[in-house]
């Protein structure tokens, strides 16, 4: 019997505001699971803290709603304990680029086989609207009434600089495209990063803006060409959607498994002998 997207839906009603971009991510994830025919018990979705980090609760898979900013180390530990499972890390731009920004390069460096979906709304939604690391300069919010003076981060450019082996951008207004990207990310044998432009309807409604300025990556873009990807990532208009980079190198859990196989097998008794006086 074929699996259906709704098989992956939990009976907990999402807390998101009506119209929130995260609904589309929820649906896209469930569709990707179904189309990849994954068993619920073989999926683990981990998250940090924030609106988007509530995702695991709305899925009927295994999940872990952890602490703010620590989704990547949490998911890394989960993957290493269960290398044959599909492990997905989800969170927002504040979770992943502000408080948790230090973990991003290391997950990429390890090429740990998890898909990291960052729902980027350029705002702190759960705390009722403060500027985030991806908010445009001059953003006026409760904690920045005179406008922010910080330049925004570019998540795609960061991911490329960190040598992330799969880098893509999706938009909550383009569901089909998001499902296709998720399906590739979930099967990628390394660290797969997907930035989802997921507007916050309450504090930073960017649907119209993104409908206007986003566009698919040029058809002739070579996904193995990092320099080209970096150039395209710097474009703000159009703001490109699609797969910027896709390459394969050995993943972390694969390599730790190989180390285990390479290591000489010893028993505790043999180990003790090494410490005999």
């Amino acid at each position: 019997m074929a699996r259906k997207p709704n098989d992956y839906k939990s009976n907990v009603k999402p807390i998101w505001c009506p119209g929130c971009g995260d609904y589309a991510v929820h649906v896209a994830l469930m569709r990707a699971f179904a189309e990849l025919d994954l068993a619920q018990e073989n999926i683990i979705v981990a998250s940090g803290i924030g609106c988007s980090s509530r995702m695991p609760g709305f899925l009927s898979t295994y999940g872990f709603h952890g602490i703010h900013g620590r989704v990547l180390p949490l998911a890394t530990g989960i993957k290493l304990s269960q290398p044959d499972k599909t492990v997905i890390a989800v969170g927002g731009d504040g979770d992943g680029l502000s408080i948790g920004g230090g973990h991003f390069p290391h997950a990429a460096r390890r090429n740990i086989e998890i898909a990291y979906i960052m729902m980027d709304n350029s705002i702190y939604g759960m705390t009722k609207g403060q500027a985030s690391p991806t908010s445009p300069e001059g953003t006026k919010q409760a904690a920045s009434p005179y406008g922010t003076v910080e330049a925004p981060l570019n998540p795609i450019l960061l991911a490329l600089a960190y040598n992330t082996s799969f880098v893509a951008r999706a938009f909550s207004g383009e569901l089909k495209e998001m499902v296709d990207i998720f399906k590739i990310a979930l099967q990628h044998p390394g660290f797969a990063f997907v930035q989802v432009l997921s507007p916050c309807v309450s504090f930073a409604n960017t649907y119209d803006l993104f409908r206007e300025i986003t566009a698919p990556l040029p058809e002739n873009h070579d996904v193995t060409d990092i320099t080209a990807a970096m150039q395209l990532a710097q474009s703000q208009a159009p703001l490109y959607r699609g797969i910027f980079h896709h390459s394969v190198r050995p993943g972390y859990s694969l390599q730790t498994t190989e180390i285990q196989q390479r290591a000489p097998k010893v028993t505790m008794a043999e180990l003790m002998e090494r410490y005999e006086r």
Partner: protein
Amino acid sequence: MGINSRTVVVRIGGEAGEGTVTLGEVFTRIAARDGLEVYTFRTYPAEIKGGQVLFQTRLGIERVLSEGDAADVLVAMNLKGWEENLNDFHSQGVLIYDPDAVPNPETRGRQAYPIPVTKISKGFDFVRGKNLVMVGALTWIFRLRLETARAVVQKSMGRHAEVLAKNLQALEEGFSYAQEHFPETFSYTLPLPEKPAERLLLSGAEAMALGALEAGCRFFAGYPITPATTVMETMARYLPTFGGTLVQAEDEIASINMAIGASYGGMKAMTATSGPGLSLMIEGLSMASMAEIPVVVVNVQRASPSTGMPTKTSQGDLFLSLYGGHGDGPRFVLAPDSVKDCYYQMINAFSLAEHFQTPVIVLSDQAMASRVETIPYPETICGVWSECLERILPTPEELAQDYRRYRVTENGLSPMAIPGMPGGMYMAESLEHNEYGHPAQSPENHKVMMQKRARIVETARKHLVNWDSSVRRWGVANAKFGIMGWGSTRGAVREAMERLAAEGVEIEALYPHTMLPMPDQAVSEFLRGKKAILVPELNFTSQFARVIEHRYYKQLDARDIHIHMLAKEEGVPFKIEEIYQAARNMIQVEGGR
């Protein structure tokens, strides 16, 4: 402890980077192989090269309990090694020194024997081998076997044939020189046993790693930090051989979260750190309490606050370990009291973490982690020195219908599904949650869940009453005077009590191995009939004494039991003498009462 004693303190002072530590380690290994019991102590300079190193090894015929007090035999490899130890040198001690580094030492009546190690090593063009020349000399002086010494050098320095040959030559040159120039009889020589018993020679850090492996730990994430790094390095070597994984994480926050993630995935997981790292892990520990995830955290304490003195010892993290974290979550804290106990308490730590689905902090310290002791070969582990418990998994029936990860139970424990189990899908939740793991904020639910988690600790406390390994009590049963302490100070306390016992003083001691939950029953029984108790600890504010005061104030008040705090935060362990004097002082002050 002096002439005719069954132990001898050999202290070596020299320049860091000149093989002083190697000198001490190789000599210690030779003594251990020849059947003596050993217990080392070392101080490091913060510098990698340069600075003064002190390496002390206490040799004994029976198990050595502490590093001892003043040096019986002082080996001065440089001038500082002589000058800095002059005030902590037994009045009938013996000085062995390099005359090129220490010209004409004024020993105030002590015997002094020059061993010209610089000159000898220059003689065959191997100046950096002067430490091995001294090893050779000490081998003869303590009547250890040259064959043993050769074997040890071969094992520990055998990587390059050329260097090994030079080192062996240095060893033999030193041995021959001492044979010719040192007096025939030496008052500090200990008799060697005919057939040495089976023993392991381990540092506290290694003992913790081996204990963790024995307990079934298969995941370690850690970040380099002095003095805990040895635990990580030992695990790094051996974990893969047992099919385990070690990650050198990007920081301590990542370390604890990785360990929690791996534990959620079904592996026995741990991390090891020191004070600054534990501070960073506190938020993660609070989550593990809330989400009911087993995890073991080793904290090798060092002198603090802040960066403090990374290479110096302390017991200053008791409060942080017991109370650090937001909110009231269940947690256990263990305090091994010797290198041997480090091994067994790690097994206990995993038993508690796994069975009670709770984070466990194991408190070691710089002195105990870095020192080397001979310990009896570990025996059957379950039921004597440690207890073996496993995680409670849901049965197929429980998974088949309406599985609730956080089911409210009488003992607080709820079977924990592991990803991959069909029917067990749940979300581990750091928010307050209901039985299913769904976020829930009602006052009723919060109350019920707080009580459920608190019952985990109470269940463990009741369980621990039957654990022999959760507390140590010794001395004169029900004596009027007591000593209560924790962790690595126990060796010095045992020896001070032996001295007091020899003088006819009646005193009894109690050392909990589980600091949380406190073994209340054992403590109450111990306090019964006491006039006063001495609480020695290596921190500034007498943290354990405060815990006792706070937890047992009714009993202390009702029986008018006085607490004598002996706090020392200097970066070095207690001397036996300090404990002895404080106990004497307590008895004198309280005696008339």
